[in-house]
């Protein structure tokens, strides 16, 4: 059990490029923290700095309040699951799991090692594979052996480096659930690197979003989703991602390519002067086919007509696509954002979520309702979210923290009751 504190961590490579730039995070005991970002954002480097495989250029790394910058990986008592599993191919599954125990010479007797290995293997459903070599195992089994090697010793924290990225989609979902349950049951501090936002949203107590080595925002998944700090976080979290619609401020109206929207209450007083351009952040589910909106709700938003290029029916819901004329003033900014998000360029296209029974189809006009109360307004220059309600966001994260504590307490009580 441990808390981990990153204090202004910087990692510079030989060419002076900062792969990790001034990142500060407090990871509480028992917390599941996710590091997420597009490729090359420094998340894996940060993880390797915590475990000790990368030197720290400047800043302090504290485990349980003790500075460990200069300590070797083996002295930090952390365990790690590698992206490619890194199993020892010349050893059986049993010996792979026993490896960390055998290294601490004299600390464990053979019986103790055997007991611990068998406990880990039964936790992970590996009992019948103990005598096999890694080469003969399936991807999911190898993944579990790597987990077994991590949980067999009483490490202070688990570190995961994209552990599921090599599995197929179905297995990934299954292992994700297993990791979540395992972490809760053991109540052990975990840091998990991923580029997959589903993993980030479902696993994390808190999620740290990184871009080019700089921490953008760290918050609970709900806060990230509902109160993103800037354009990057807003665009990165959520699938399909948030729509960014250019708008000119004209008094209390946003003039957009899709029509005029009234400035919602939460944006009042926070906007730049008249005629300035802003980006409206609208998630697909903020839209609806106007026919399916309750009378009571209609007045809370606004409606407009649009022509759909095509629709995608997913069974439980339906996505409609609307093209619009891109504003030349923000195109460069949006393309840059798309590149940061691993895309190539931002299409001038709005994705809206429609009721599954909506009859709107590609090539037809549709009347769309939009819930303007939930819209965010971004400054296209700085990327800052002008409508972010920091207090509401903090409240969401506070709730998540309390839920986690209660969950771990329950797990520990159950454990105590069981044995």
């Amino acid at each position, binding site marked *: 059990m441990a808390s981990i504190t990153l204090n202004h961590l910087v990692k510079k490579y030989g060419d002076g490029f900062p792969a990790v730039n001034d990142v500060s995070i407090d990871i509480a005991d028992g917390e599941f923290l996710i590091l997420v970002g597009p490729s090359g954002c420094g998340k894996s480097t940060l993880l390797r700095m915590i475990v*000790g495989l990368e030197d720290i250029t400047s800043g302090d790394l504290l485990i349980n309040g003790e500075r460990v910058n200069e300590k070797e990986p083996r002295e930090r008592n952390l365990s790690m699951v590698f992206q490619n599993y890194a199993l020892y191919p*010349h050893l059986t599954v049993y010996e792979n799991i026993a490896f960390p125990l055998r290294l601490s010479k004299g600390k464990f007797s053979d019986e103790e090692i055997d007991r611990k290995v068998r406990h880990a293997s039964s936790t992970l459903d590996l009992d019948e594979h103990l005598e096999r070599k890694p080469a003969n195992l399936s991807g999911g089994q190898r993944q579990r052996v790597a987990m077994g090697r991590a949980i067999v010793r009483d490490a202070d924290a688990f570190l995961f480096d994209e552990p599921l990225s090599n599995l197929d989609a179905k297995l990934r979902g299954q292992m994700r659930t297993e990791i979540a349950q395992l972490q809760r049951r053991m109540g052990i501090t975990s840091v998990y690197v991923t580029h997959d936002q589903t993993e980030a949203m479902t696993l994390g107590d808190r999620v740290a979003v990184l871009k080019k080595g700089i921490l953008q925002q760290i918050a609970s998944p709900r806060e990230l989703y509902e109160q993103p700090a800037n354009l990057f976080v807003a665009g990165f979290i959520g699938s399909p991602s948030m729509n960014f619609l250019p708008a000119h401020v004209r008094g209390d109206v946003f003039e957009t390519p899709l029509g005029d929207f009234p400035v919602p209450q939460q944006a009042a007083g926070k906007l730049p002067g008249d005629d300035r351009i802003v980006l409206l952040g609208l998630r697909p589910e903020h839209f609806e086919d106007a026919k399916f909106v309750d009378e009571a709700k209609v007045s809370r938003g606004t409606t407009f007509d649009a022509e759909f290029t095509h629709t995608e029916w997913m069974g439980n819901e339906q996505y409609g696509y609307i093209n619009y004329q891109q504003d030349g003033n923000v195109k460069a900014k949006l393309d840059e954002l798309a590149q940061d998000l691993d895309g190539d360029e931002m299409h001038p296209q709005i994705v809206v979520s429609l009721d599954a029974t909506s009859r709107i189809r590609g090539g037809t006009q549709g009347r769309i309702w939009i819930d303007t109360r939930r819209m965010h307004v971004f400054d296209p220059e700085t990327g800052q979210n002008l409508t972010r309600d920091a207090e509401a966001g903090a409240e969401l994260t506070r709730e998540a923290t309390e839920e986690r504590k209660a969950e771990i307490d329950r797990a520990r009580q159950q454990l105590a009751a069981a044995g």
Partner: protein
Amino acid sequence: MSTKHKVGWAVVSVLVLIYALFPVASILMTSFKAPADLSSGKFLPTQWVGENYSALFVGSARDLFLPSLRNSIGICLIATFIAVVLATLCAYAIARLDFPGKKLILTVALAVSMFPVVSIVTPLFNLWRQIGLYDTWPGLIIPYLSLTLPISIWTLTAFFQQIPWDLERAAQVDGATTWQAFTKVIVPLALPGVFTTAIIAFFIAWNDFVYGIGLTSTEAARPVPAALAFFTGASQFEDPAGAISAAAIIVTIPVVILVLLFQRQIVSGLTQGAVKG
């Protein structure tokens, strides 16, 4: 593979085998021929005799052959062992560490192995006589290292580069020191490479003739290839080819044994299953 392919491959394999093994068979037959039979022009001996072999172990050539066999085995084993140990450490450093002069080491190693042996043997002969290494085991082991080290470093570097670096990192996180990670994870995985390298190095040393004849003068250090040149017939009119053939067959045996022994260790694809990929 279709039947047609199989037959084709079988024919090619047989042709290659005949091409490669015919000289060996010829030497084997010669070793069983009596001196008078040597120029018969026939492949098989007209009469099978064992006198060439008995000459090597109990007869006239005994004092020449047995010490040289001992020298060859001892010198080559020691040279191989030193070369493999040094090359393992060196190759590991080249494969894993980033240090200035890495390229230089590899280039120099290559350059050394390209240097013609004949041009070095005369200066070495003078030097060795002055410092007392002439006609001693170390006097041969040192030049043999110059032959075996470069190739060992190159092959082992290639082997080490195949081993995923994450395995070592995993071992370090699991609590291993750098040395433990090396001995418990890297060396077991590199073993096939080490054995392959050892065999190659042994062959190079075993087959050397120029250093063997140039840097020795007595049975104190003379290796087999050099000793064969000193074989004589019973009289000056008699051809020693029979005895030389017998000796050639004898010295092939250790090499065959070595390959058979290590064959099991040379298991390719040992790193399979370490990482996804």
